[in-house]
């Protein structure tokens, strides 16, 4: 019976340890086959936040610069595409290539229409920050009581 949270923490710690051991077992064979359990995979993962007049969007885009990203907005449809180059240096021998390369695209349907003229996008530390102001019709309105 668990009486304290630290007991549960320890239980999960033991499971993590087992998982790491198993991972090490597989990584001995070249390809990191076993790490898929531990890998935090997926590309162009996105968060969407709503605050009154704006949508705030965050996307994970590691290794992409602003030239290689493309953002399209129409109404409430948002499409982000990008490409990442394999930065294989000349004359090097490859040990592991897990990081993907190529072109990526993802589209979203936002809950409301967006004023595409005032959208702002910034790129910092491999995260794309989008500020999407809602269109006038979609903005919340203050009602006065008569």
């Amino acid at each position, binding site marked *: 019976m668990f009486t304290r949270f630290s007991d549960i923490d320890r239980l999960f710690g033991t499971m993590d340890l087992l998982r790491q051991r198993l991972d090490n077992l597989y990584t001995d064979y070249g390809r990191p086959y076993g790490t898929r359990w531990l890998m935090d995979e997926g590309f162009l993962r996105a968060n969407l936040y709503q605050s009154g007049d704006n949508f705030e969007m965050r996307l994970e885009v590691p290794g992409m610069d602003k030239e290689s990203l493309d953002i399209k907005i129409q109404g409430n449809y948002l499409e982000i595409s990008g490409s990442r180059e394999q930065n294989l240096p000349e004359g090097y021998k490859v040990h592991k290539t897990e990081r993907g390369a190529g072109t990526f695209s993802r589209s979203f349907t936002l809950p409301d229409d967006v004023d595409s003229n005032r959208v702002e996008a910034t790129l910092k530390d*491999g995260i794309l920050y989008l500020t999407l102001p809602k269109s006038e019709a979609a903005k919340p309105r203050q009602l006065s009581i008569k």
Partner: protein
Amino acid sequence: MEKKTEIAKRNDQNIEKTRELYEAARMVDIYENEDEILLYADMPGVAKDELSVNIDNGRLSLSGVRKLETSGAASWEEFGNVEFVRNFSVPQTIDVEKVEAELKNGVLALHMPKSEEAKPRQIEIRTA
């Protein structure tokens, strides 16, 4: 190895832990040539100050903490605050003094030069 004893032993002085960061491993590329080992690691959202690279006795550990500021109500969230952790064994021949790390667009590039003694050497054959 330390962790093992830590788990097995119940310590009554253990203070209840507050919420810990979820640990995750991210993808890496590792290349090598005659002069150096080159490692690329994805670290999206990790600021320079939150990233640590440790080489100790043939063990390289990377750790990057991502703390994102959020505002407003979340409609959907596919990623969050996380600690990117990954450990590697590196040869003892790495010249630790000369290791260079560079963080660009959320990707860490780690140059680990090999020490002079470890570089391959061409041996000239003399005729007697």
